């Protein structure tokens, strides 16, 4: 081996990490994990050229590098800014960033219909997570939201443009993993919309991956629409021999029925790599046609690492933030470290539910006090 590869030292919210040159700030922060990782709505590490559009991942660069320690004048999009050696980044420790992020979340929600109760994406929606974690509780927008007609693009996918946040991910995926792209962005500004060229159907073997990359409920699986809520489904890993794709999927079961099939996603909501190192996109045959358990070889329950409601009961391998974070955040406890019992009165660990007689009522807990 020749000389060792030079690593860049970057400090994000007082946590220092070494990363390879050419890594973006966002990916470096993901290596640390936890609350310091900026949220990302449009960036998708598997899609070239994505990112920079939603502005939720803005961070403050307090020092550009060791060689040039001047701070950057504006907040920068961490997904499209590469780290430099000795860079000091402030994410949740910067008032400016928190303020700007709140603003961006408010902007994203301006024209979003908030029809979560009837939206298929609810429970695994990035915008839901984002607004819970970074948004304000109310909106100051008093005007009519933009509305679009629902549109079926091809036999499998429905486009619900009203919900779209224009992250451009679906156009990138059509450019990069399919041969022909027949959809794109029409019009500009607020009226910009994803659409097909003169109502053409999207018809190619990998079009279903658009659904997986969509961070909101704008592109939904027509074979799954209104069939079930995602949090009632049990995700299991499964695979089959597929001549078109890697064939490694997550089945979403209820009882013995397979309700839907998706690619396997990691804790950032991105498709996991297949064993050959390529992103594990799956083909439409696997996604839409193989809806029987007998089509698949089940590997075991899927461990969902995201902190969305769907992973209730499936938490495993959650990366806990570093110990230093309490100092960083001024004594405030990060959400992931909080114990549910310290928040809720119910389920006090001091009350052993098996030990009480009869049903657990408020009285039981009152007595404990």
């Amino acid at each position: 081996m020749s000389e060792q590869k030079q690593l860049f030292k970057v400090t994000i919210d007082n946590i220092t990490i070494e990363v390879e040159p050419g890594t973006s700030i966002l990916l470096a922060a993901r290596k640390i994990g936890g609350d310091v990782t900026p949220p990302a709505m449009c960036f998708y590490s598997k899609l070239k050229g994505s990112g920079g559009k939603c502005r939720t991942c803005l961070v403050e660069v307090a020092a550009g590098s060791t060689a040039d320690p001047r701070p950057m004048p504006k907040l920068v999009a961490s997904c499209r800014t590469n780290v430099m050696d000795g860079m000091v980044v402030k994410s949740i420790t910067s008032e400016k960033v928190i303020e700007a992020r709140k603003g961006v979340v408010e902007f994203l929600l301006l024209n979003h219909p908030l029809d979560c109760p009837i939206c298929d994406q609810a429970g695994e929606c990035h915008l839901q997570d984002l607004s819970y974690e970074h948004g304000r509780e109310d909106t100051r927008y008093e005007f009519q939201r933009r509305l679009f007609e629902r549109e079926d693009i091809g036999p499998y996918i429905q486009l619900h443009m009203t919900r779209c946040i224009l992250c451009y991910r679906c156009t990138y995926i059509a450019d990069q993993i399919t041969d022909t792209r027949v959809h794109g962005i029409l019009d500009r500004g607020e009226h910009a919309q994803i659409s097909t060229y003169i109502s053409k159907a999207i018809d190619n073997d990998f079009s279903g991956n658009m659904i997986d990359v969509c961070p909101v409920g704008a592109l939904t699986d027509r074979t799954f629409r209104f069939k079930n809520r995602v949090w009632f489904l049990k995700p299991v890993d499964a695979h089959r021999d597929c001549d078109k794709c890697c064939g490694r999927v997550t089945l979403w079961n209820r009882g013995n029925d397979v309700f839907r099939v998706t690619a396997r996603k990691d804790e950032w909501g991105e498709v996991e790599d297949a064993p050959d190192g390529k992103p594990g996109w799956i083909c439409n045959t696997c996604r839409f046609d193989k809806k029987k358990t007998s089509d698949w070889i089940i590997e075991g329950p899927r461990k969902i690492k995201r902190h969305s409601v769907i992973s209730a009961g499936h938490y495993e391998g959650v990366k806990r933030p570093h110990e230093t974070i309490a100092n960083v955040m001024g004594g405030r406890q990060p959400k992931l470290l909080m114990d549910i019992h310290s928040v809720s009165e119910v389920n006090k660990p001091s009350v052993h539910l098996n030990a009480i007689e009869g049903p657990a009522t408020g009285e039981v807990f009152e007595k404990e006090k």
Partner: protein
Amino acid sequence: MKLLIDKANIEGIRFYKAYRENGGYASVEKAFKMSPADIVEEIKKSGLRGRGGAGFPTGMKWSFLAKPEGVPRYLVCNADESEPGTFKDRYLMEFLPHLLIEGLIVSSFALGSNRTYIYIRGEYAWITDILEHAIAEANDNGWLGKNILGTGFDCQIYVQRGAGAYICGEETALIESLEGKRGNPRIKPPFPAIKGLWDSPTVVNNVETLAAVVPIINMGGMEYAKIGMGKSTGTKLISACGNINKPGVYEIDMTISVEEFIYSDEYCGGIPNGKRLKACIPGGSSVPILPANLLLKTAKGETRLMNYESLSDGGFATGSMMGSGGFIVLDEDQCIVRHTLTLARFYHHESCGQCSPCREGTGWMKRVLYNLEYGKGKLSDIDLLWDIQRKIEGNTICPLGDAAAWPVAAAIRHFRDEFEWHVLNPEESQVRNFGLAHYADQLETLTA
């Protein structure tokens, strides 16, 4: 002093014969005897600053251009002049097309661009014809094409029409549009000087900047730098419009005062009907608006001059910017709320929709301003507007977000009581839509 448009009144100057007889293309002959690096050095010495709005030193921009082996370099002329209130490039291209061609040949030679593009806004259809005619004439007379003047340098100029989008005046959006794509600004870095048109190093310059190269080469950079003052060297075209007696394009050397520019008969000729000056946007619609008292004198009490430093004196709190030179004058009868609504509507319409603060925020500001203007506003709306603009500014991919936020911010900063008057007198504001006239008063009465 006139360097650019001094010959504009000569009969037939639009055509090659008259242009050449009046000393045209002399700078090309002179430049081809110099080395490209010397020309860049000459531009650096001249202190020429980009005339498109940002005022970045042109010589510095040119020296940043990457020069890898085997990769073509491009010069793109930004003629997508779409800023409301700015029409100086139109005048230049319409009456002196050969001046631009001449500047482009010299600049192409300095930068090593064999294919040079003029990206012109779609609405300037007749100017496209004028430019193409001029390019054909230059070709016929050996100023363009292969082996120009026997120097072995090839150059061809192409005119590309845009499709009428303001955003395509932003240099990376312009490059995208020129490549035939949707005109969305690119995320920087990489900057166009490294990776621009078709991934090759590219310089994008404004029409006026490139035209100014001609007098710089003719008279020498040091001589050019003597005109004007401080870091504002040379002459600047100002397109004056609004409530003035003589709207039009004026060439100034940047030493005259704003007061002289508005009131002297040589320039705008004062305000019609004996009205008083209320406010002014000194550099195209994106720059902050200034009330009369801050326009004529800076906060320190000095006379404000028509140049980069003086107009931006005091920062955004009490100053503005030179911008692109779109000088819009408002007299005491104009309503600032209505005026701000007009601008907000423009930026909402022209937002490309790529990044969320600008896409959603511009529309929101427009709607809040609409309510304020039409008597449906609340006092809290003013604070809301302030908060929205603050969250757009600096958080977007390209400067359009800033350009949309600044006019609103400045209007609220300087004319807040006019907004409040609109809210508190909803009925009167619909009938007598003049706003408040006291901004036209002298500074003394305000400070006293």
